[in-house]
C-alpha cells in the first residue's frame, strides 16, 4: 500500500471523485493540476485504476429466474363481488329469492294435515268425498299398462324375427380390400422402421459429438494442468538457482 505523503485538503475524497470522474469542473481542474505534480497521488490513482480494472471481471452467476417466480397479484384476479359490501350482497340474495318464489308461485301452508308446500300455477282440483281419489285412478292406469304390455309381447312372439341382411361383397372385391389393407400396413411399417433408424442414427451422432467435445475439454484441461505444473517447476528451479547463487 502506498503511504499517503500528500497533504492536499480532502485528498482521498478528491482522488476517488477523480477516479470515477464524478467531480465538478472547478475541483477537477484544481486537483488535476495537483496530480500533475504529486507523485504519490499519481501512483495511488494508477493503483486504484488497476483495482477497478480487476473489479470489472467480477460478474455474478447467471440467475435462474423462472417466470413463475414473481407474479404481481393482478386486480382482475379478485372476483368483482369482493368489492360489493356484505349488506348489499345479502339484500341481493333476498331479492333474488323473493323473485324466484313469486315466479314459482310458492304456496306454503301449515294446518291440521301438516306442512304443505306447493309450487306451480295450476289450481288444485277439489275432489268431493273420497279422501284418496288418486288411488283408484292409479290402479286403473296400472291395469291398462299391463294389458298393453302383454298384448305387445304376444304380437312380437307371433312375428318371426328376420335376420339382418348382410351386405353382399364379391370375392374379387374382398381380395382387393384385403390387398389394400396389407399394402397400407406394409407402408406404415416401412415408415416406422425408417423413422426408428433415423432416430438411432441421430442419437448416435449426438452422443458421438458429445463424447468428442468431452474428450477435447478433458485434453484441454490436462494440458492446462501440465502447463501450470511446468510453470511451477520452472519457478522452483529459478528460485533454487537464485538461492544457490546468493550463497
Amino acid at each position, binding site marked *: *500500500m502506498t503511504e499517503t505523503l500528500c497533504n492536499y485538503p*480532502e485528498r*482521498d*475524497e478528491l*482522488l*476517488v*471523485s477523480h*477516479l*470515477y470522474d*464524478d467531480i465538478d469542473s472547478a475541483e477537477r481542474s484544481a486537483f488535476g493540476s495537483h496530480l500533475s505534480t504529486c507523485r504519490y497521488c499519481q501512483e495511488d490513482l494508477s*493503483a*486504484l485504476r*488497476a*483495482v*477497478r480494472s*480487476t*473489479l*470489472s*471481471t*467480477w*460478474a*455474478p*452467476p447467471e*440467475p*435462474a*429466474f423462472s417466470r413463475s*417466480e*414473481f407474479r*404481481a*397479484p*393482478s*386486480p*382482475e384476479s379478485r372476483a368483482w363481488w369482493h368489492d360489493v359490501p356484505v349488506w348489499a350482497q345479502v339484500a341481493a340474495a333476498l331479492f333474488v329469492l323473493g323473485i324466484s318464489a313469486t315466479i314459482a308461485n310458492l304456496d306454503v301452508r301449515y294446518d291440521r294435515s301438516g306442512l304443505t308446500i306447493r309450487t306451480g300455477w295450476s289450481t288444485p282440483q277439489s275432489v268431493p268425498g273420497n279422501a284418496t281419489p288418486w288411488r283408484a285412478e292409479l290402479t286403473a292406469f296400472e291395469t291398462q299398462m299391463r294389458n298393453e304390455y302383454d298384448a305387445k309381447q304376444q304380437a312380437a312372439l307371433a312375428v318371426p324375427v328376420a335376420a339382418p341382411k348382410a351386405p353382399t361383397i364379391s370375392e374379387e372385391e374382398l381380395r382387393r380390400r384385403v390387398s389394400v389393407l396389407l399394402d397400407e400396413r406394409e407402408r406404415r411399417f416401412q415408415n416406422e422402421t425408417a423413422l426408428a433408424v433415423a432416430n438411432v442414427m441421430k442419437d448416435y451422432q449426438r452422443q458421438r459429438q458429445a463424447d468428442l467435445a*468431452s474428450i477435447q*475439454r*478433458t485434453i*484441454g*484441461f490436462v494440458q*492446462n494442468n501440465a*502447463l501450470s505444473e511446468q510453470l511451477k517447476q520452472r519457478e522452483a528451479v529459478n528460485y533454487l538457482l537464485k538461492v544457490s547463487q546468493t550463497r
Partner: protein
Amino acid sequence: MTWSDEELVSRSIGGDADSFNQLVLRWERPIYALAYRVIGREEDARDVCQETFLRAFRALGGFRGQAKFSSWLYRIALNLCRDWVRRQRRTPVVQMPEDVDAMELAASREPSEPIEDLVARRDLTRVVEKAMARLPVEQRTAIILKEYHGLTFQEIADMVGCPLSTVKTRLYQGLTVLRRELSQTPR
C-alpha cells in the same frame, strides 16, 4: 413503445399488472446482481430479489416519484440485504468450491474462449469475490453501487443515508483495502 419506469409505475398503480411485470423484467437482473454482490449467496440473492419486487409492488401506491424508481428499488433491496446480513450475524462468505470442476467449467465457457483464459478468469473472479467479502458491508455496498451500478456519489449518499463525504471516504478506504488484498493474493 417503450415506457419509462415512471410511466410504468403510474400504469401499475392504475391497475395494469402487465406494466409492473415489465418493470420486474427490466430490473430483476440489476437487483439480483446487487444482492448477490452484497450478500454473496446465489439463492439468498434470488430471494432478496423476489422480496424486493413484492415489497415494491405492495408499496407502489406510496411511491411519489421524488426519487428515481430504480433508486427506490435499490433502497428496498439494500434494506433487505442489510436485514439478511444482520440475521446471519456473520461476514458474508461467497460460496465458491475449492476445487473447480473442470468439466463444468469447460461446459460454461464461451465457444471461442480458450480453456486457459477461462480458468484464469474464474480464478480472478474468485480472488475478487473473496477480497470483497472481507470488506465491511458499508464499504462493500458503496463500491458495488458505484462500480457496478454506476450511481453518483450523491445518489449513493441519499440511498444509504449518510453524508456525501462519507461515501467517498468509504469508497477510497474500500478500494485501498482491495488493492492490498489483491496484490497479496497469489493468482
